[in-house]
């Protein structure tokens, strides 16, 4: 296994980490209007209060690592998705500050405003992530220098929008399971109900997307011939999706949450496998595609970065664990909460 493959895998790890961790807090944001009273909304917000910021760092680090390891892909995707990224930035800014600002002033109008900003920005960000993934699956029109030659509207095809909706339903499901773990009483009952709804919608979209992908992008499963073990990912995915209702039925929310995490990780793996060894597929000129070899940094940089990651990741894992452990258990709203 060469350094380029290692970095492809590490980026996959960062992306899965981001999708799993920020996934549930984006989900909490989308479900936020379901909480009716201010007390309920505070429980929602404080369920992610101490951790959403750290979760978002996974995205920042993914961006930095993509820049460092595969600068050509970073430049192509970020400049090609220009307006989409600007919208994403607006969403991420509003999300961050709506959490911080909401609690600072006791006024229903003020809180209502930031509640909607929180929900809307979570929804928009998730949709945009899904649309981006859908477009990468389809391939982008690139010129010889790897420059995107399409426009913003070209990114809004049926397939990317379907993947966008899949992402929304998946994070909403993930978020509702997380909320079940963190809430009690009536609110937990309501969330339990919503787990069923979101799971049902996710299941339908999951099957639709799978069929659409197989019909439209048969190349997505080419690697299954070369790497038969890849079938295990599909099996894990199906088992995890199927296990969620079973766990819900038995009120095993922890198990449902782990299953939902595995579902997300498996989908990221399938996405990466469909793409490999490309990072940005060029369509209709496949020769201009950016691969993990022609878009990569020098061998020297990849190895330096591996050392940096080797030193940094154990620390990151340690404090992620410490933080989650410190804030384990049901949400307690106290004077220091949002």
């Amino acid at each position, binding site marked *: 296994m060469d350094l380029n493959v290692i970095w492809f895998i590490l980026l996959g790890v960062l992306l899965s980490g981001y999708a799993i961790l920020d996934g549930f807090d984006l989900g909490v944001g989308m479900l936020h209007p379901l909480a009716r009273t201010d007390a309920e909304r505070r429980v929602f917000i404080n369920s992610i209060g101490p951790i959403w910021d*750290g979760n978002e760092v996974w995205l*920042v680090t993914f961006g930095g690592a993509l820049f460092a390891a595969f600068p050509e892909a970073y430049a192509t995707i970020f400049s090609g998705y220009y307006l989409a990224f*600007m919208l994403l930035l607006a969403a991420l800014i509003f999300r961050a500050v709506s*959490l*911080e600002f909401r609690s600072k002033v006791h006024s229903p109008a003020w809180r209502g405003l930031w509640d909607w900003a929180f929900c809307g920005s979570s929804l928009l960000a998730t949709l945009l992530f899904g649309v981006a993934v859908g477009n990468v699956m389809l391939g982008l029109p690139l010129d010889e220098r790897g*420059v995107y030659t399409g426009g913003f509207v070209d990114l809004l095809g049926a397939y990317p929008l379907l993947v966008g909706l899949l992402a929304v339903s998946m994070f909403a499901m993930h978020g509702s399971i997380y909320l079940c773990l963190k809430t009690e009483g009536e609110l937990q009952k309501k969330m339990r109900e919503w787990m069923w709804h979101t799971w049902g919608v996710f299941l339908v979209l999951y099957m639709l997307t799978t069929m659409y992908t197989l019909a439209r992008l048969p190349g997505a499963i080419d690697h299954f011939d070369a790497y038969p073990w890849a079938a295990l990912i599909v099996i894990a995915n199906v088992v995890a999706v199927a296990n969620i209702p079973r766990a819900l039925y038995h009120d095993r929310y922890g198990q449902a949450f782990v299953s939902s995490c595995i579902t997300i990780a498996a989908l990221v793996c399938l996405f990466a496998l469909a793409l490999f060894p490309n990072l940005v597929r060029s369509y209709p000129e496949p020769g201009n595609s950016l691969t993990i070899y022609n878009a990569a940094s020098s061998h020297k*940089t990849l190895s330096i970065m591996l050392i940096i990651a080797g030193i940094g990741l154990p620390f990151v894992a340690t404090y992620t664990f410490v933080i989650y452990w410190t804030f384990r258990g049901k949400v307690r709203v106290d004077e220091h909460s949002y």
Partner: protein
Amino acid sequence: MFTLAQFDVVWLSRLQFALTIMFHYLFPPLTIGMGVVLVYLEGRYLRTRDPVYHAAAKFWTQIFALNFAIGVATGIVMEFEFGTNWAVYSRFVGDVFGSALAAEGIFAFFLESGFLAVLVFGWDRVGPRMHFFAALMVALGSVFSSVWIVVANSWQQTPAGHHVVEMMRDGKAWIVGGMPVMRAEVVDFWAVVFNPSTLNRLTHVLIGCFIMGAFFVMSISAWYILRGRHTEFARRSFNGALLFGTIFSLAAPISGHFNADMVAEQQPAKLAAFEGHFKTGPGDLHLFGIPDEASQDVHAGVAIPGGLSFLVHGDFHSPIDGLDRFKPDDRPPVGVSFLSYHLMVALGTGFVGLTLLATFLRWRGTLFDHRWLMWVFVFAVLGAVAANELGWVAAEVGRQPWIVHPPVPRDASGQLLLDAEGHVAYDPMQGLRTRDAVSRSIKGEEVLASIVMFGLIYGLLGAVWLYVLNHKIQHGPPPELEPHVTESLLDAAAALASHGASLTEAHDADAEGR
């Protein structure tokens, strides 16, 4: 009158970058500066178990968290903009610059954001030791973050530890449109990190952050003192911040001097623009002036003759390379560079005077009696903010027209290598011009739309930030900070003294018993 045709992508992208980074840069210096304050307060609490320190730490933590949230939200924009607007730049420098950004993410952001959770939400969940540790880690994280970002920026200013080579594709040089595609690749990682300007610039940046943090705390404290509210808390906060602010205000010009020396060596065109030094020869040190690029002169200048030569070379007659040594196309814009640099220096000098005066009055024991001085401190924080921003403007505009500055060619004796026309002979392949660095796939209208969007969002954020900040300040620190009426002041003073408080604080407590 501007028309849309004049809004080219490069100009708009520069405007967008300037707008977003100047807004963002309000917050990191505040969090870096205030991080140290939090560590100090938590450390004092850990040692003395005095609830006043605990309450003070709580109050400043709330404000810290507010600043931090906006800093993070606007910081993500910066990381994305390299790719969205400066794709050619990203392709050219990714091998070198990207690792610094990734290192910032993995070493700084995780540390900061993780322990911020414990700091803000963990008061009742972890013990005071762990809470102190969290404050320390957050402060450390914000400093680490500045280290990596200054490393990345300094490499653009004075690149080192790399070589510019042809990019390979399938084992052959990659040719697009008849030209090989070039990029910078790392040769020596530590030479990249410790490039010729990193240490000087990092020191100066951190000093600027500490000054801003100190003036921010002094501003709010001075306001409480003027209003006669939370005075005990405000005096202690003010005194701590004053000591801190005085030390770093004094350190700023020293560090600034070393920076200017380094700029003279590494980026002579930038220094010439800072000083409005058009013609090579002995350099005057301008205290004031209006540089005019058309007539190559500084109008209404007040200058120390030979002062620049003295500062750089130690005598008043040594020649300093002027802007005439550079091709017109290689000269930075003089007006903005000169103005931002001089305003920064003037503000820095003002901080020295102001903090020394306040320290002197504090020693006399009359500091808080001078209401006018307290009013000055209420507003002085704006000067600190401006000085930090202006320093950034001077450093970045002074680097133009280069986004990656090519090394300055010198001979063995250290003299500039000149071409036949007497101009500095840069190797253009070693640098990258800003105008060549912009993304090819974006359109002026898209960038304009994003500027409008950021303008609206940041305007809103700024307004809400001020509103919430004001709300917090009006609300004041938690009630533990109010003097206990039942407790006699003598007891309070004794308690302070026995808790190892400094003599000056005991003195202040006495003074309050007037």
